[in-house]
């Protein structure tokens, strides 16, 4: 199965089960024109909306769970699957560093192969990179910043909430420095 189709089919499973989700990580980055490839698909969900039916429905589209997930709380804490054909991993998280769906975050909707997939906002994606702050994350945050026009007001607000404002200012300084 093509990666795009796999992504859409996975989003369809979430929607069918009324699980509130957003795509984050490298895949979301690609949808915001990031030049970096990724080794997995990451979703943040509202964990209370997750049921064990998710495991069965994901199995139907060839996602193999790495655990048995007999306990709902285990699945809600962290769900990991891999794709039968590629061994490609899928992560389902209740929150990520610098991000949670319980907060009033912006969600974008992107059409992939005619299906609307919910994706975290560009600004939140940058904030998540700043929250992790490895060299790789800084680079990816800069690429996202350069490839798009982030909403600076919203990004500052979110950076304050996630306590990464000084990191955002550092990134902005690095970008401005190169433009002068």
């Amino acid at each position, binding site marked *: 199965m093509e990666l795009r189709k796999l992504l859409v089919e996975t989003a369809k499973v979430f929607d069918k089960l009324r699980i509130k989700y957003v795509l984050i990580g490298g895949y979301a980055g690609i949808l915001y024109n990031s*030049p970096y490839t990724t080794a997995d698909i990451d979703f943040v969900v509202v964990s209370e909306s997750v049921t064990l039916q998710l495991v069965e429905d994901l199995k139907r589209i060839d996602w193999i769970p790495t655990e048995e997930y007999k306990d709902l709380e285990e699945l809600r804490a962290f769900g990991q699957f891999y794709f039968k054909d*590629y061994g490609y991993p899928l992560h389902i998280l209740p929150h990520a560093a610098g991000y949670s769906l319980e907060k009033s975050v912006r969600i974008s909707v992107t059409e992939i192969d005619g299906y609307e997939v919910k994706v975290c906002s560009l600004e939140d994606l940058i904030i998540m990179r700043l929250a992790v702050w490895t060299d790789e994350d800084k680079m990816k945050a800069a690429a996202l910043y*350069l*490839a798009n026009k982030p909403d600076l007001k919203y990004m500052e607000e979110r950076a304050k909430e996630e306590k990464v404002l000084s990191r955002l200012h550092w990134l902005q300084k690095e970008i401005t420095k190169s433009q002068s």
Partner: protein
Amino acid sequence: MKVKSSKGLDIEKIKRKVEERKRISNEAFLDMMGSLIELKKNGVKKTSSRNR
């Protein structure tokens, strides 16, 4: 474990990558990534059959 550092960024290099990426649509980029994964998978298979 990934190392954290206060090293500066090579913004020019990132800019070049961003510009190159702009020439490719998201769909084409995802398809390209899918092909790379498949290639990697097939490569692993070949190695294991050679070992048998």
